[in-house]
C-alpha cells in the first residue's frame, strides 16, 4: 500500500507538472493565433485598435451568408459556425470585459435553438476564458455537475482544440485571414443536388415545442446591450425549404424582440424569390453559397440602413 501511495503521489506530481508546461505552451500559441474559429478570430478582433461600427454575430448562417462589405458603415463579422446563442452571449461578455464592444450589433437568431434542448456545450468553445471571465466560467459550470473537476487540469482548456490551435498559430503567420471575418462559400458542382438530400423531412404530425427557457441566453445578450447602450438588430436567415422549427419559433421570438424594442427581420418568413427559385445559390438547405449570399447581404443591408443611420439608441431603456 505504501508503494502504491508513493507511486500515485509521484504520478500526480508528474501529471500536474506536465499539465502546467503544456498549458503554458498552448497559452502562448493561443494568444498569438489570429485566425481560426477556435479563438484566433476572436483574438484578431480583440487586437483591433479601431473598432467597427457594426459587428455581425451568429452562427454559420450569418458567417457564410452576410457580407460586411454590403453595409454602409464599417462592419466586421465575428460569427462562429456551429455556435449557438449561449456562445454568442459568452462572446459578448468577453468583449464587454475587454472593452471592445461595438456601437451596433447585428445578431443572427436561429430558430433551431428554441425547439430543442438548451445546448450549453457551445460555451466550451470559449473555455480558454474559464477562470478569466466570471460569466463564461459560470456558464461552463452549468454544463454538468462535474464540469469544474475537468478544469483541475489547466490543459483541459484546450480539449478538442489542440491541433486546431497549432494549425491556427501556423496559419496566422502564413495565411491571409478572411477579409472582415466573412467566409464565402464557393459554389461547388453538386450544390443544387445535395441540398434536397440534406433537407430533413417534415414528418406529418411532428410536434416541436418552443422551449421558452432557452430564451435566457438571448435575454442575457439583450441585457448587456442595454447596459452599454448598444444598438441591437436581429435577423434570421432564410431556408430553402420551410422548417417546422421556423413556423414554431418565429412568433415567440418576434414578440419577445418587439417587446424589447429590438428591430428584427425574419428573412425566413420573407425570403427573396430569387433565392427560392435558384437551387444553385444554396450549398445545402440551410446555407447560401457566395452567389446567394450576395442577395441576402443586400437585403439585410437595405433593411438595416435606417437603423444604422439613426441617432438614438434602438433599445429603449427599461423602466
Amino acid at each position, binding site marked *: *500500500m505504501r*508503494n*502504491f501511495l508513493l*507511486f500515485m503521489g*509521484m*504520478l500526480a506530481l*508528474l*501529471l500536474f507538472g*506536465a*499539465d502546467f508546461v*503544456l498549458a503554458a505552451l498552448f497559452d502562448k500559441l493561443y494568444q498569438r493565433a489570429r485566425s481560426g474559429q*477556435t479563438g484566433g478570430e476572436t483574438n484578431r478582433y480583440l487586437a483591433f485598435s479601431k473598432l467597427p461600427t457594426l459587428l455581425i454575430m451568429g452562427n454559420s448562417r450569418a458567417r457564410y451568408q452576410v457580407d460586411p462589405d454590403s453595409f454602409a458603415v464599417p462592419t466586421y463579422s465575428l460569427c462562429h459556425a456551429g455556435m449557438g446563442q449561449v456562445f454568442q452571449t459568452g462572446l459578448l461578455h468577453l468583449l464587454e470585459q475587454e472593452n471592445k464592444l461595438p456601437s451596433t450589433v447585428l445578431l443572427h437568431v436561429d430558430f433551431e435553438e428554441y425547439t430543442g434542448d438548451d445546448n450549453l*456545450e457551445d460555451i*466550451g468553445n470559449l473555455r480558454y476564458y474559464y477562470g478569466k471571465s466570471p460569466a463564461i466560467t459560470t456558464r461552463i459550470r452549468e*454544463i*454538468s455537475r*462535474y464540469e469544474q*473537476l*475537468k478544469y483541475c*487540469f489547466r*490543459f*483541459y482548456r*484546450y*480539449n*478538442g*482544440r*489542440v*491541433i*486546431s490551435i497549432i*494549425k491556427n498559430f501556423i496559419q496566422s503567420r502564413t495565411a491571409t485571414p478572411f477579409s472582415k471575418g466573412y467566409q464565402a462559400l464557393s459554389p461547388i458542382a*453538386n450544390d443544387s443536388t*445535395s441540398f434536397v*438530400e*440534406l433537407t430533413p423531412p417534415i414528418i406529418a404530425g411532428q410536434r416541436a415545442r418552443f422551449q421558452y427557457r432557452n430564451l435566457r441566453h438571448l435575454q442575457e445578450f439583450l441585457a448587456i446591450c442595454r447596459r452599454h447602450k448598444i444598438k441591437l438588430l436581429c435577423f434570421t436567415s432564410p431556408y430553402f425549404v420551410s422548417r417546422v422549427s421556423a413556423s414554431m419559433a418565429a412568433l415567440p421570438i418576434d414578440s419577445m424582440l418587439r417587446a424589447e424594442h429590438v428591430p428584427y427581420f425574419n428573412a425566413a418568413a420573407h425570403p427573396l424569390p430569387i433565392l427560392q427559385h435558384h437551387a444553385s445559390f444554396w450549398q*445545402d438547405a440551410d446555407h447560401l453559397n457566395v452567389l446567394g449570399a450576395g442577395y441576402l447581404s443586400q437585403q439585410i443591408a437595405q433593411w438595416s440602413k435606417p437603423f444604422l443611420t439613426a441617432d438614438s439608441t434602438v433599445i429603449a431603456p427599461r423602466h
Partner: protein
Amino acid sequence: MLFNSIQFLVFFVVVTTAYFLLPHRFRWFLLLVASCVFYAAFIPIYLVILFGTIIIDYIAGIQIEHATGARRKYFLVLSLVANIGVLAVFKYYNFLTDNVNFLLHQLHITAHGLAYLSIALPIGLSFHTFQAMSYTIEVYRGNVPAERNFGIYVLYVMFYPQLVAGPIERPQAILHQFYEKKEFDFDRVITGLERMLWGLFKKVVVSDLLAIYVNSIYNHHKANTGFTLLLATYAFAFQIYCDFSGYSDIALGTAQVMGFKLMENFNLPYFSKSITEFWRRWHISLSSWLRDYLYISLGGNRKGMTKTYRNLMLTMLLGGLWHGASWNFVVWGFLNGAYLSIEKMLGIETNLGAHYSLPYKMLRVFVTFNLVCLTWVFFRAASFQQALYIVSHIFNPVGFWNLRIQDTGIFASMTLGVLLLLLLEYAYLRRHRIAEISPSRNWHRPMAFSVILILLIVGFGVSGGDQFIYFQF
C-alpha cells in the same frame, strides 16, 4: 452510469477503497450492493426484471442438480424460456410486430395491425441473459455445480464491471473467484488501472472522435460519394472496435484492480488473415458462447458439410439478431455466415505459418479487413435501404475521389488517434501485454504510459461523448 463518466470514477474509487478496507467475508455483499447501484443508475425499475430471471435461474440450477431424467431438462428449458422470453418481449416484440403488420398490410388482411409496446430495452439485457443461460446449461452438462449461495449467484449475473456489455463469462471461470480472498497487490492494481486508462483512451479519444466524422457522413449519406463513404466505413470499423474493446479493457481493468480475472474479449481482430480467424479475435466471449452453446449443439461440423454450412449460417444469423432487432443485423449475420461457409468450402488456410511471405499475409489482412468493413455498413446504417445505397456508391466510380472533410481539426485529431492506436496496439502491445508495463521492474514505464495517456485524454478526449455502442444490445 457510463464507464467514461466522472460519476463512474467516483463510484469506482469509493467501491474499490471500501472493498479493500472490508474483511473478506463482507466483500461479496459490498460488490452486490455496488452492482445494484450501478445498474439502477440506468433505469432502476429494470432491477425487478433482472431479479425475476435471477431467481428463476437460481432455483432452476439447484433443481437441475437434484433432479434426474426428464425433470432435469424441464428445469433447463424453464430457465432458457424465461431468459429468452424476457429478451423476446423487450428486444424483439416490436420487430416481430413490424414484420407481421407489414405482411398483414401487403395481404390486405387488416388496416390496423398489431399494437406496439412502448418500453425501453433494459441496458445490457442480451449480455446478462446469455451469461445466465450459460450457467444453467453448464450445470445441466455437469461442468459446474449449482451455486447454493443466492447472493453469490446474484453477483455472478450482476458483477458490475461486466454487467452491461460483457465479457460474457462462464460460471466455472468466475464463480469460484467470488470465494477467494483477494489481497491488495501493488503490481496488479497498477496494471489494472493502466488497462482502464488504455480502455478510456480508446473510447474517448479514438472512438468518440471517429464517431463525429462517421455520424456526419452516414447521417447525410446521400450528399457523399465513393471515397468519402468508404473512409467513413473504415472510420466506423475503428470506432466500433475502440468503443467495444475500450469498454472491455475498462471492465477487465476494473475487475483486475479488485483481483478478479475476466476473459479477454479482443485480440487485435483487424490483423486477422481470414474471417475464421477474425471471429476468434473479435468479441471472443460472444463468439465462443455461440460456438459452445449453439453451433456445437446443432451438430457443429460433425454431421457432414451441408449441415456444417447450415449450422454456421444459423449461428451467425442468430448472432446477428442478438445484436439488434432489425433486418440490418440479420444481413450482417448472414454475410458473416456466408464468409465462414465459403472459407470452409474453399479450404482457405486460416493458420498462416512462417513459410508464407509477409506481402501475402498483408494482402490477406487487407482483404479480410475490407470484407469485415462491408458487413459494418449494414451494422451502422440506419436502414437496409441506406446500407444498400452506401454499398452501391462505394463501388460507384462516378465522383469517387470527391472527399468531404467538414472540419479539418477533427479529421486531423481522429487520424492522430488511429495512428496512436495502431502504434501502441500493434507495435507495442502485440508483443508486450499491459501486464508487462508493471512497476515491479521499474516505475518509469508505467509512469510514462499513464502520464501520456492521461494527457491525451485531457487534450483530445471527447467530453459528453456517445454512449458505448454495445450498451444498446
